[in-house]
């Protein structure tokens, strides 16, 4: 045999061993996660990567206050809520003990609690994290009369309109649709922007309309479909009429929140239902429109009854398999404290859950820096604080059931595309779809 291959062999083998070693090391490092450094327990906080850094600020503040008792380490999740849930669920179903604190969308509570993926918040902390908090926000974190998470931030849609187009904001959807028709005839900006794609936004819209009309998706304990005939029909009629109005964009069936924002900044629209992120954005991208931009309570169904809008936001839960559950509950109660809520609001634009903060100067006087034509400028961050506070106080919670995901799928599937809704027939279709979803059987 020539020496070539024989001489090469050890080198080749060495390389293989090195590569294998590298993979193993990478694998171990990936699995390791939270080692406790120097005797201080590390609490892993699984939460989406908040771009402004407000969450990491909160974690540092609490670490300092804990003075060596624990150390919170933020572990980033994707920004999309569905993807966050998918990643968390995969770990939690495998009983991952490295998850100590979870940043949870308000709609996950029932599912996570039922499966044992989150622990109830102990009495002492529960009292602390519900004190002075907005009642609907606390309700999102409650399942079967126990508090399973601490409200962290909140949000709800408002009606945005333009002072140069309409003087008085419409109080109901009916008024808005007829006002848009008048504006259209007068050749003024008349578009109405909302969320019509087949996704969670459609569930938010439907729930808000239904609850404003006096109906509910599920019964009080979340086990059976409710959907009273009258209110459901009304809600469906509004959805259809809005979608068929000539003042609704052609691509409404695919529109999400951000599509609305972009269209709004073009100046063709008179009305938009959307979250508060549109305010700083318009001030940066379309200052002329932002100067005319006003806000009002989400439109209602009847002129005499104030609207009820579906609440959004995030709660913090304690991982069901955490080795440091008590410390994690303590850390949660620190993270959701008023000081951190102010930081979340002023730095990240996330609305607080403590009611009194909406009247706090630190929030009402807060400014946000926007860039207009390359120049930095400061505008008021929360000029709408009183409107959103009133809305959040009356807000409603989306159906609280471990089958939430199935129920939401049933709603968005049955009602999309909203142009095609038939209020007479679709009440029954919707009831059937949601009943199937609650049984957990069959395809959706």
């Amino acid at each position, binding site marked *: 045999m020539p020496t070539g291959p024989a001489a090469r062999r050890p080198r080749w083998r060495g390389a293989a061993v090195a590569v294998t070693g590298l993979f193993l090391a990478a694998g171990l490092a990936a699995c390791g996660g939270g080692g406790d450094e120097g005797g201080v327990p590390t609490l892993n906080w699984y939460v989406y990567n908040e771009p402004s850094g407000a969450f990491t600020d909160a974690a540092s503040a609490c670490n300092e206050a804990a003075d060596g008792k624990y150390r919170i380490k933020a572990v980033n999740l994707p920004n999309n809520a569905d993807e966050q849930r998918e990643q968390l*669920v995969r770990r939690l179903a495998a009983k991952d003990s490295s998850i100590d604190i979870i940043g949870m969308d308000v709609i996950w509570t029932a599912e996570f609690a039922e499966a044992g993926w989150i622990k109830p918040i102990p009495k002492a902390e529960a009292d602390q994290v519900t004190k002075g908090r907005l009642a609907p926000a606390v309700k999102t974190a409650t399942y079967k009369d126990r508090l399973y998470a601490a409200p962290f931030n909140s949000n709800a849609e408002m009606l945005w309109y333009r002072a140069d187009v309409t003087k008085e904001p419409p109080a109901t959807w009916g008024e808005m649709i007829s006002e848009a028709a008048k504006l259209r005839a007068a050749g003024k900006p008349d578009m109405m922007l909302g969320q019509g*794609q*087949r996704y969670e936004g459609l569930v938010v819209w439907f729930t808000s309309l239904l609850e404003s009309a006096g109906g509910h998706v599920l019964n009080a304990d979340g086990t059976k479909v409710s959907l009273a005939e009258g209110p459901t029909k009304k809600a469906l009629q509004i959805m259809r009429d809005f979608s068929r109005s000539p003042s609704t964009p052609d691509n409404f069936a695919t529109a999400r929140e951000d*599509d609305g924002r972009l269209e709004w900044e073009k100046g063709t629209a008179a009305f938009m239902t959307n979250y508060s992120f549109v305010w700083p954005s318009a001030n940066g991208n379309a200052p002329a429109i932002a100067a005319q931009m006003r806000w009002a309570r989400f439109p209602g169904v009847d002129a005499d009854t104030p609207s009820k809008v579906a609440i959004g936001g995030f709660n913090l839960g304690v991982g069901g398999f955490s080795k440091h559950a008590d410390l994690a509950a303590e850390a949660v109660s620190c993270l959701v404290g008023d000081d951190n809520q102010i930081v979340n609001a002023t730095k990240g634009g996330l609305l607080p859950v403590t009611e009194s903060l909406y009247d706090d100067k630190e929030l009402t006087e807060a400014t946000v820096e926007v860039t207009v034509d390359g120049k930095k400028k400061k505008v008021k961050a929360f000029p709408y604080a009183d409107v959103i506070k009133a809305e959040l106080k009356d807000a409603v919670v989306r159906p609280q059931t471990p089958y939430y*995901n199935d129920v939401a799928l049933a709603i968005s599937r049955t009602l*999309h595309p909203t142009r095609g809704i038939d209020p007479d027939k679709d009440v029954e279709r919707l009831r059937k779809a949601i009943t199937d979803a609650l049984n957990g059987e*069959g*395809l*959706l």
Partner: protein
Amino acid sequence: MTATTAAPAKQPPEPDPEAKAMGKKGLSARARSERKLGWMLCAPAVFVMLLVTAYPIGYAFWLSLQRYDLRFPDDHKFVGFKNYGAVLGNSLWWQDLTNTLVITFFSVIVELVLGFALAFVMHRVIFGRSIVRSSILVPYGIITVVAAFTWRFAFDPTTGFVNGLLGTDRSWFTEQWSSYFVIIFTEVWKTTPFMSLLLLAGFTLVPQDVVDAARVDGATTPQRLRTIIIPLMKPAILVAVLFRTLDAFRIFDTVYVQTRGAQNTETVSIIGYQTLISRLNLGLGSAVSVLIFGCVLIIAFLFVKGFGTSLAQQRGETP
């Protein structure tokens, strides 16, 4: 290796009895030992295949017979074929299966025609052969999700260029036919190069002297194509179509990115994903996955059964 091949050679030619026995069994001692060696040589690969494919498939089948929802870990029991009943008895499954077949049929047909033309160009090009070949392959090198996003943005009425190019003002993803059009268009754009690559291999199967002989005999170009080139390329065409059909049937990324299954464009893979990953219903979701696997097997079986002879022909096994 040497031992096995050398051993029979050393033996003197044996008289009839054993040869007859061998004839009956159809295998000589040499063939037997070669077969044994063959098995031993593939054993590691077979073992790995069993580990990474047979085990998950078997496990998925086992799960599909259970009532098993990750959200209700305690409510876990054997239910037999009930999940299959629930899937097959639901009109949604049949609707999605139809959608999938529509996308599969149209994308494969268009890809076959375009792929053939491109393969012909790649085969005949004289100048800048490598540039032509590699530029044709570019779309295939792009990740499917990226391609799906690219075309979604291109067809978007606010950010896209397609409406401007066509002089239309259409919202492509709000109607069923146009959603299908964009999805199939994206699929075709993305995988035609793969088709043409397989067909290019087929072109090289056609001996030039046969084509030249036909030309001398006075066959026109369409005649040569119809009677000489395509029949000789048939095995390659069938392999290409089989591969693409199986691939197209499992379409997920393009639909997920572009419509998320709205406008009735949902495919069977999306319903599987939704049931398994979003709804965490492992029993029902596994039943969907096993049914998709079954469909793929049926497609493969039909192709192999229907065109098996021509594959064998190519290997010269039948006259």
